[in-house]
């Protein structure tokens, strides 16, 4: 239940901490989702025109912060997104990455998102079409953001790339769909937020399955956390290239912050200090 002040309840916080993910229903209205889809149509058409049609891609991805999708970009600063994140990660947390994705593959094998374990990051995803177990719904293994379970799943080779078979699958005859999990069947407007170390997957996807993501990072305070941020900055250019992201993560019009939004100003200041803007926009690999 989203409260009037957009805060999540103590029970929802406890659920997130226990499971490593949190499902939030009806966060956005059907009218809002129609607007997001409309912007998605236009932007996707222009992005597709820019890329090689022969190139095999997991997805076509572009950053949300761009002038062609003003309504979707405004959701970054919507309290329905950032208030719960500030409850979970701290009031000084920062929205560092936000993308729109149009998937091409039918399968996202089991994986978790980041190699950096020192610093907590949460990804929010909303799908723009209904999802079901056999139709691209995201799946999660509860509590798999924590060890020893996280590493046990790694050792089982649940994360083998497409067209390769991990040892557990090969020996058991099971496939990714058989792995016990929670299945996030959703309607447009639902949002799931998860710790980026939580194992997840999706099966039965289809061409142009659509999602928008809003990724938050806690403010690094310890030397280990600062080192984690440095690792992310060092890997950012590779990540942008590997994912084939089209366009700048931090568009100049967003960086201008024309309405002097104080939260955006803080985010920009931190992102610049930590080296994210240079890394994601211009491929620089060192923190400032």
């Amino acid at each position, binding site marked *: 239940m989203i409260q009037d002040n957009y805060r999540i309840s103590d029970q929802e916080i406890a659920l997130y901490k226990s*499971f490593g993910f949190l499902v939030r229903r009806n966060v956005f209205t059907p009218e809002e989702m129609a607007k997001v889809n409309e912007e998605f149509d236009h932007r996707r058409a222009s992005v597709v025109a820019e890329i090689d049609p022969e190139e095999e891609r997991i997805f076509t991805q572009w950053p949300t912060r761009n002038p062609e999708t003003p309504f979707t970009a405004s959701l970054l600063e919507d309290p329905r997104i950032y208030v719960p994140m500030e409850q979970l990660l701290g009031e000084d947390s920062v929205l560092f990455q936000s993308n729109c994705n149009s998937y091409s593959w039918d399968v996202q094998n089991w994986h978790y998102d980041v190699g950096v374990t020192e610093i907590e990051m949460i990804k929010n995803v909303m799908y723009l079409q209904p999802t079901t177990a056999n139709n691209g719904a995201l799946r999660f293994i509860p509590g798999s953001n*924590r060890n020893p379970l996280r590493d046990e799943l790694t050792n089982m080779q649940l994360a083998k790339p497409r067209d390769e078979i991990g040892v557990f699958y090969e020996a*058991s005859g099971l496939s990714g769909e058989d792995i*016990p999990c*929670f299945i996030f069947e959703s309607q447009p407007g639902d949002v799931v937020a998860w710790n980026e170390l939580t194992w997840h997957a999706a099966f039965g996807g289809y061409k142009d399955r659509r999602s928008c993501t809003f990724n938050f990072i806690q403010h690094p305070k310890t030397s280990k956390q600062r080192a984690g941020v440095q690792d992310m900055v060092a890997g950012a250019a590779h990540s942008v290239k590997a994912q084939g992201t089209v366009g700048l993560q931090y568009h100049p019009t967003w960086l201008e912050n024309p309405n002097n939004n104080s939260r955006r100003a803080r985010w920009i200041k931190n992102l610049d200090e930590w080296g994210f803007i240079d890394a994601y926009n211009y491929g620089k690999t060192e923190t400032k």
Partner: protein
Amino acid sequence: MLTDQQIHQFHTFGFLVLKNMLKEDELKVVNEEFEKGYTKKNKSELIAGARVQLNWSNLDHHSPYTASLLEDKRFYGIAQQLWGEDVIGTNSQSNHYAGTRSPWHPDVGPNTHGCKFTFYLSPVDAESGALRVIPGSHRPEISDMIRKIRLKDNDPGPPEDPGLAVNEVPFCSCDSQPGDAVIFNYLIWHASWHGSKNRRMVSLQYYKNPKTPEEIVALQAHGAAFTKNKKEKLTVAQPYPDFWTSNPENSLLRARWIEWLREWGFMESIPA
């Protein structure tokens, strides 16, 4: 028997769904014996609040076939694979649910190990009373976190924040057909939702023979927990029936189990 991968899967996630473990003719007998037990059962002995549950041991004369399943190598052999050669078969139980839900719970406290085979006698899925589990929640690091969540059925809060209902907790559904078995670690959190008011389930229960000091202390405490459960009407006090303890065929396996049950103080009350 389980493959190495199934054993791995069980210990990783805390449960398995095993298809077609009972044949049609066996199911027919189990259903008939369930009906006899249900007819005989005192209907005033309802337990476990929201579940509106009646339960009784199958280790009695009305259900010899269902009782025999406890010593059937198909099941205790699997229990041995999971918990060692000296695993103990402690009960075969029938359960009738007239409530539409079972609140989230693990069956035992920390360091008590074992597993339960459950056989639902009609088809069940997520929205018709199938067992819902939280995969991996038998692990202490996850279970301890779940204990901090306020659950409406277990520990209701004030009206403005009563806690989460069964269906508000993420789950994996163990859908099953008659003859399938869901085998789960006693420590895994489980529940059910939207069950029919005539839901029937038969279970086989096995305990690991405790080895470590923590396991020994936990099993000793289990008796005390049983008394508490009895007080809270989570189970019915029931000594082991003579039909089973007399061991008329001198089963060495059963003799060993009976000795263990005596040693650990369970003969006067079947462990939950």
